[in-house]
């Protein structure tokens, strides 16, 4: 197994909720509340979960585009959260992010050439302006765009082309880790497939590591070596992709997989569904955060917070059902929805 490139421990990013004339802090949105994550060199880890579970914030916090309150983000052994912003900038060369919205995340007043070259300029790589332009052309070819897109503006490109620009832009500084934040979610399926293939090729060529943030499980299955499932700011299950898809341990993962559409009627999962709506991340439920929606809830879930237990089949699950000391589960009928 390759060396760990990114190690996230106990990451916590809370957003203050302000109210009233004096803008006093009355509470916190606990977007990310104690997340551990490891990405190895050349590996793809998928971070999945419903919208609002904090997965995007995890990605941004790793790059310190949001400021986490606690925890550590070690990149190649160096804790990024402890770095002053000057030093932090140097690490941004080695870890890049592809954003979800390919239109909004590109400066509308810059041409493709400058959009892609700006990162090189910040880090002084790629030689002078002319050399950089040549390199941008190479990058465009790499993401299968013609060189004549060089002087276009984002609004003159299609969604798929823009997302490729976003990828070319991220690759321009030769990163080791690319965080893909819903990088293909905004695209239609045929273009999604193209981009995913492209990402796979680039990974093999450049030995990139990906942290793939998505809610789309079919993408995960196709791309990821490992999966981490997030719920209300915490990781509830993680493990090798195959294990997660074939034998999901956590009831939430089971619910997610059951909810995912499948083209194969034979392969329908028949786990119990997830009940109701996501509770507010400003006031997460006591005990297990998932107990309000879990079809398998029992007493202990409401009282205690489950840690991550090792699963027999590999990986970890934040569920008392995996606790070896937990007596066999009392027969509780699923709550009425």
């Amino acid at each position: 197994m390759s060396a760990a490139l990114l190690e996230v421990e106990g990451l916590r990013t809370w957003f203050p909720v302000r109210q009233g004339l004096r803008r006093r802090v009355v509470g916190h949105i606990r977007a990310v509340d104690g997340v551990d994550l490891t990405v190895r060199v050349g590996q793809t880890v998928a971070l999945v979960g419903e919208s609002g579970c904090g997965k995007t914030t995890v990605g941004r916090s790793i790059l310190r585009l949001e400021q986490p309150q606690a925890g550590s983000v070690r990149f190649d052994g160096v804790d990024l959260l402890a770095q002053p912003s000057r030093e932090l900038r140097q690490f941004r060369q080695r870890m890049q992010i592809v954003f979800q919205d390919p239109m909004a995340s590109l400066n509308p007043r810059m041409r493709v050439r400058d959009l892609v070259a700006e990162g090189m300029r910040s880090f002084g790589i790629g030689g002078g302006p002319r050399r950089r332009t040549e390199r941008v052309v190479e990058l465009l070819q790499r993401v299968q765009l013609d060189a004549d897109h060089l002087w276009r503006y984002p609004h003159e490109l299609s969604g798929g082309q823009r997302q490729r620009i976003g990828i070319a832009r991220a690759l321009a500084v030769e990163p080791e880790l690319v965080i893909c934040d819903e990088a293909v979610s905004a695209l239609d399926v045929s273009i999604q497939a193209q981009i995913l293939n492209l990402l796979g090729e680039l990974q093999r060529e450049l030995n990139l590591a990906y942290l793939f943030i998505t809610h789309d499980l079919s993408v995960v299955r196709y791309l990821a070596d490992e999966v981490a499932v997030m719920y209300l700011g915490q990781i509830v299950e993680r493990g090798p992709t195959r294990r997660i898809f074939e034998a999901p341990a956590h009831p939430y993962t089971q619910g997610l997989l059951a909810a995912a559409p499948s083209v194969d009627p034979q392969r329908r999962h028949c786990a119990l569904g997830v009940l109701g709506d996501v509770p507010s991340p400003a006031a997460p439920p006591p005990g297990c955060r998932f107990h309000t929606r879990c079809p398998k809830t029992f007493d202990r879930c409401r009282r205690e917070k489950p840690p991550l237990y090792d699963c027999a089949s590999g990986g970890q699950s934040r569920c008392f059902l995996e606790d070896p000391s937990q007596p066999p589960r009392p027969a509780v009928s699923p709550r009425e929805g």
Partner: protein
Amino acid sequence: MLAYVARRLGYGVLVVLGVLLLLFVLFFAVAKPEDIARRALGEKARQEAIDIWIASHGYDRPLWPWQQPADNQLFDHYARMLTFDFGRSDTDDTPIARRLAEGVGPTLSLTVPLFLVGLVIALLFGLFVAFFRDTYIDATGVFLCVLGMSVSLLLYIIGGQFLIGKLLRWFPISGFDPAPVVVARFLALPVLVGLLGVVGGDVRFYRTVFVEETGRDYVRTARAKGAGEMRVMLRHVLRNSLIPVMTRVVLAIPFLFVGSLLLESFFGIPGLGTLTVDAIRNNDFATLRVMVFIGALAFIGGQIATDISYAFVDPRVRLE
């Protein structure tokens, strides 16, 4: 692009024609030439003198073309205004064109520095408070701006004249001398006072624009690319804010020629603002007509220039 400019100018011409009609109704149909003549000649002028005055200024002719198609005041008014043949003042018979030529220099020497310095200060201060948004620096900045906007310009004028002109004696209280270096001494105080009155509102406007822009996704992208904060603010935020900034700036440019009524008259600057104030005071309708016409032209010109400038600032605007 050319077609757009042509159409925009065409609309502008229509508006100008409308403005002229309105002016005519207000100044010719409402004001009686007898009253104007009495103002010019004095209360005790004899009827013959008044009649002569009215005839010599052409106010005795029929107003409307349906009264006399060949020689009427409406057509005459249009013809003269549109050819910039402004005629003579109602009060002292000096050519209005000469008055304008004399006044435009002093006016510009006040308004141009005020405009440029104000623009730079407002943009920089706007960026500054936007960068520190939602902190005490931001709150204090906005408070000062609102304070500056809320206090009447008259207070700044009189307060400035008293404090800087009288007590500190840094600059003359009022007056004007067009000699190259001396003029700066006379203009320093009015420019300073003008800034106090103008900058607050501008800063607040620019701050709003900048804060909105700093929240955009591409700004986050720029940071992820490793761009420094200075570059993020100037290259990304400022440049993307140029459309609303431009609107405000281009709209203001034509008014540089109209001058500031209050500043000029209080600081004794013999510019177009003073010319207008004097015309109002003396019922000099001929001059006043011209000033209103020029103001309207400035406004319309500003609007057109703003629209066209969009195309240069924002690549997404294609003028079709």
